[in-house]
């Protein structure tokens, strides 16, 4: 019988095979893990070590001082060479980049700036630029990030292309880079971005802008019209951040935007900038908005609104079903007119016990103020209507229903407890409004409510009952204030004052007592008998009767007038005392200017009033005034001569002026001129400068004038004549020179010469010579000659100076190829290097010298060869020039020699050899040109410098034969000629 179940036959070989396979896989896996791990750790260790090697070098570069000593400089150069070699390796470049990026986070100030510079100097940004071309988003993003972090401004143009990249990471990185790299980047970004700007991105961008130094934000209102709603939103936030309140109209328009975020932000801006004009629009859009925006709008209305907006807010509070909105509307009302809506929730009136005596006292005083608009009855009636309506809608929360017990049931049963709560609060508010709308109660009583903050729910119920009973009074159309005062007050005599608030039980009992006593009949019966109601414990609500805020308690004038209190009267007395200055003001004001009372001011007089300083009455008055101002300096115009006073009035008055309380006039900074030379007869004065005094050589003052006048006119020759004339004059009138009258031509010529002298230079010599020829007046001719002489001197000096100046100027040689070289590609550079050899001159030597440090090897080699060729060419040119010059000089000498010989001995003919022999005999240099000694030192220096360079000794790969003969063969060819030329001097 075969077995019922036969075990499947297991292929052992297969099992073994599978086992080996899995073991093999495991081994491979473990080995690969081991290898990778080792690889990573070794790379890490290598990087760490390399960082350690590079960081001192970086430090050396960062803190290198230009003014350091020679050893440091040589060390710096060595490091530079070393680091250039190091960064040829990709790994080293990567590590160095990491080092710089790490250090960027840790350093600040000038070190950071040096770090950025070093990054670019080492050409590390090229790697980042290469990353921008990658197809992998993370590589591109990394590249952008690196360029941004290291502030590579030239990358701006490349990065802006990624602003609308479809890869969000790249895009965001590009956005930040654009805003970071250039201050105008934010403009470009807002103009061009088409994608969403996330909240986080906005924060980052704002942070970048915030940290920008000397950032002048653009007017962000220009982007409020963007079709990208995110741009609009960001612009709004930026407007708010930078307080740019010049976009009010746009802000108002944006309140109607479909996007709630924009709407909300615009509302925020409106509130921030206090745009009152937006209120009508805000009211319009309120109904259509969601809860958050409604709350924001109500907040703005509360902030910017006026009393006229209370009605609107009231209607919102009534109409709105949402608790938060309703609450905000009431808060807004209270913001506009504080305590328009009073707290009702959690108010406990238990423990409020007013002393009977106090109540009786208060009863005698009229508590209720009648509104300005109408009678109490009318107002109350209107309020009653409101109260009835609102009380009909009164609702309570279910929880409260349970606790209230005796409270009246709500008429409407709203299923929403929050709405119930809201309605309840609202109705209670309405009830308060109704009760005291036309009354002003002393605010002191409100404190009673504050005392009882920790009241229990029962107390709330009781107070609610009280309000309900009050409503019943209203329902009977009895003037509220009268009824309350008549009926309630006698029963609330138990109410404790603040100090006795710790009697809750008594209060609760008596509150019930109130209810039992509040009966319509009783009220009617006692209407006339009872004094007015003391209802100061009730909240205060005032209608729009022209009063913005509740009146302070101490200015309740109506109350005071009806029941004058001694204390208040006392206050009035004080008030009158305060008024005293006003009475004083109403009096006739004293004159604004009184010389007696402005003793602290200096006396300022005009020069034209000089003659008034005589011994007349005015002078005496003035002097007496001055005496009163004894402690003050006297300030007069420069022309004023105080000596006049002294001369005309030698009494003590002048002494008084000069000695003011121990001071003399010299102690003050007064510009007096003690001109002893003043002629008293005529009062004629001349202000002569020092130079004039020197010129007259002690002659009469009239001569000074003449000298001065003639000097001014530049006619020095005539000056002598006038001096002679004036010598014999003793009379002052004779000292006055005769006026020099020019005819028209003379005046013209003198004016012209004046101008030429003042503004002309040696170039006017030709004109002056022409004028000299044409002129027949002696003194004009003399002047022209004098001017020619001066200008000739100037010309000689100028030429010499200019030459020396030009020689002194060490102008840097400038290669036209330098700029071109920057903007072309590699191939073009190589071609250009060939062209430089052909068309270049010594100016290109320095440029080529600079290219020897170019990172590109091929360019470096090409530059080397070009430099060698160019140097050879320049040297050759120089030699050729010298030879040519020497040749020309020889020819010139020969021509002169021939000419001279021909003049002296026309028959004799000299050969060339005889000429040279003669020259050698007399040892005459053939050249007559002094410029032969002018050596171009600059070029020599350049040549010396370049010859000294070792690079010139390097083998040149390319041998170029230039068409103008700068090749080595050409040099060899010319060598004998050069030797010959040198031998010839």
């Amino acid at each position: 019988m075969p077995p019922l179940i036969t075990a499947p036959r297991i292929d052992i070989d297969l099992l073994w095979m599978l086992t080996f396979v899995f073991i093999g896989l495991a081994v491979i896996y473990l080995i690969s893990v081991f290898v990778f791990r080792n690889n990573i750790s070794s790379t890490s260790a290598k990087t760490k070590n390399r960082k350690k090697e590079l960081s001192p070098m970086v430090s050396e570069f960062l803190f290198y001082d230009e003014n350091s000593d020679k050893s440091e400089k040589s060390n710096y150069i060595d490091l530079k060479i070393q680091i250039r070699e190091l960064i040829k390796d990709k790994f080293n470049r990567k590590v160095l980049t990491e080092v710089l990026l790490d250090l960027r986070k840790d350093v600040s100030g000038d070190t950071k700036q040096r770090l950025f510079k070093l990054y670019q100097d080492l050409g590390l940004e090229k790697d980042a630029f290469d990353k921008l071309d990658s197809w992998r988003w993370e590589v591109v993003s990394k590249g952008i990030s690196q360029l941004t972090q290291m502030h590579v401004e030239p990358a701006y143009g490349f990065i802006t292309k990624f602003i609308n990249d479809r890869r969000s990471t790249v895009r965001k990185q590009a956005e930040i880079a654009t805003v970071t790299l250039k201050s105008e980047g934010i403009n470009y970004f807002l103009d061009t971005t088409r994608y969403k700007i996330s909240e986080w991105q906005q924060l980052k961008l704002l942070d970048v802008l915030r940290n920008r130094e000397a950032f002048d934000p653009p007017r962000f209102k220009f982007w409020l019209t963007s079709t990208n709603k995110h741009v609009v939103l960001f612009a709004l936030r930026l407007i708010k951040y930078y307080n740019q309140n010049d976009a009010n109209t746009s802000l108002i328009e944006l309140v109607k935007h479909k996007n709630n975020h924009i709407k909300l932000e615009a509302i925020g801006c409106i509130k921030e900038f206090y745009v009152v004009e937006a209120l009508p629009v805000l009211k319009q859009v309120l109904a259509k908005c969601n809860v958050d925006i409604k709350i924001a709008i109500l907040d703005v209305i509360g902030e910017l609104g006026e009393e006229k907006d209370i009605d609107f807010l009231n209607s919102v509070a009534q109409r709105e079903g949402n608790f938060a909105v309703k609450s905000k509307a009431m808060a807004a009302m209270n913001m506009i007119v504080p305590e328009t809506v009073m707290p009702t929730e959690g108010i406990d009136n238990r423990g409020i016990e007013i002393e009977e005596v106090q109540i009786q006292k208060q009863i005698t005083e009229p508590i209720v103020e009648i509104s300005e608009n109408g009678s109490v009855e009318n107002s109350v009636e209107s309020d009653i209507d409101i109260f009835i309506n609102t009380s009909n809608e009164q609702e309570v929360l279910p929880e409260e229903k349970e606790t209230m017990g005796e409270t009246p049931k709500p008429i409407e049963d709203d299923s929403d407890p929050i709405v119930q709560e809201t309605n309840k609060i609202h109705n209670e508010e309405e009830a308060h409004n109704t009760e005291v709308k036309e009354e002003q109660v002393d605010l002191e009583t409100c404190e009673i409510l504050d005392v009882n903050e920790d009241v229990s729910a029962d107390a709330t119920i009781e107070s609610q009952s009280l309000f309900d009973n009050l409503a019943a009074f209203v329902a009977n159309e009895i003037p509220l204030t009268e009824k309350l005062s008549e009926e309630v007050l006698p029963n609330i005599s138990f109410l404790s004052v603040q100090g006795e608030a710790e009697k809750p039980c008594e209060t609760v009992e008596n509150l019930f007592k109130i209810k039992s006593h509040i009966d319509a009949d009783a009220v009617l019966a006692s209407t006339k008998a009872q004094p007015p109601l003391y209802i100061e414990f009730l909240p205060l609500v005032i209608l729009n009767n022209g009063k913005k805020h509740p009146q302070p308690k101490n200015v309740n004038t109506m109350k005071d007038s009806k029941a004058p209190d001694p204390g208040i009267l006392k206050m009035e007395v004080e008030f009158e005392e305060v008024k005293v200055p006003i009475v004083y003001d109403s009096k006739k004001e004293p004159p604004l200017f009184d010389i007696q009372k402005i003793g602290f001011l200096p006396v300022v007089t005009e020069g034209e009033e000089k003659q008034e300083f005589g011994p007349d009455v005015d002078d005496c008055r003035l002097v007496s005034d001055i005496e009163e101002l004894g402690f003050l300096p006297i300030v007069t115009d420069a022309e004023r001569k105080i000596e006049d006073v002294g001369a005309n009035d030698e009494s003590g008055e002048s002494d008084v002026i000069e000695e003011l309380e121990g001071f003399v006039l010299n102690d003050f900074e007064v510009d007096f001129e003690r001109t002893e030379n003043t002629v008293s007869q005529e009062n004629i004065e001349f202000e002569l400068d020092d130079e004039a005094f020197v010129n007259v050589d002690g002659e009469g003052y009239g001569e000074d004038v003449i000298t001065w006048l003639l000097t001014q006119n530049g006619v020095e020759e005539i000056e002598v004549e006038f001096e002679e004339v004036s010598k014999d004059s003793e009379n002052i009138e004779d000292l006055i020179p005769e006026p020099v009258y020019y005819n028209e031509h003379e005046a013209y010529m003198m004016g012209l010469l004046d101008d030429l002298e003042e503004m002309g230079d040696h170039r006017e010599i030709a004109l002056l010579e022409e004028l000299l020829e044409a002129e027949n007046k002696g003194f004009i001719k003399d002047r022209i000659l004098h001017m020619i002489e001066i200008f000739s001197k100037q010309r000689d000096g100028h030429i010499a100076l200019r030459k020396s100046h030009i020689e002194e100027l060490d102008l840097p040689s400038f290669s036209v190829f330098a700029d071109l070289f920057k903007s072309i590609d590699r191939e073009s550079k190589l071609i250009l290097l060939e062209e430089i050899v052909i068309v270049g001159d010594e100016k290109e030597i320095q440029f080529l010298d600079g290219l020897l440090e170019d990172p590109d090897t091929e360019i470096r080699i090409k530059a080397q060869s070009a430099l060698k060729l160019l140097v050879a060419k320049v040297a050759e040119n120089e030699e050729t020039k010298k030879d040519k010059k020497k040749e020309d000089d020889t020819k010139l000498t020969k021509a002169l020699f021939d000419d001279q010989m021909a003049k002296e001995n026309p028959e004799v003919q000299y050969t060339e050899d005889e000429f040279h022999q003669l020259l050698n005999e007399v040892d005459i240099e053939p050249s007559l040109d002094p410029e032969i000694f002018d050596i171009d030192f600059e070029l020599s220096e350049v040549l010396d410098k370049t010859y000294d360079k070792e690079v010139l000794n390097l083998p040149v790969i390319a041998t170029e034969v230039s068409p103008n003969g700068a090749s080595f063969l050409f040099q060899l060819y010319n060598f004998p000629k050069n030797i010959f030329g040198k031998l010839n001097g």
Partner: protein
Amino acid sequence: MGKAKLLLAEDDDLLAALLNFRLKKGGYEVTHSSDGKQVKEFLSQTMPDIIVSDIMMPYFSGIELISYVRKELNSNVPIIIISSAGNEENVLNAFELGANDFISKPVNPTELLVRVGRELNKN
């Protein structure tokens, strides 16, 4: 007069190397310790003229270092704290424990040099 001895306690090698270089260039004899243990060892052997320490260090924080120097070693050696931005609470603690000055990261090495000089001049 010899160079002033300065102990630089900073765990970031790169920053430490940079500050080390700058301070040495500024004329100080700088000893660098990269963690709290090394600092403690160093201080047990010799007392520098001034200590510049990072707050966040392995094994032994800057705050602990101040406490150690002031309370256990009873030394009034000036201590300048290097703290990261947003680490104000630690800075306050450091001052309470007796730090003389603080400089926040990112560090301006030139500023640090000035502060070190000022503290040494005070003492």
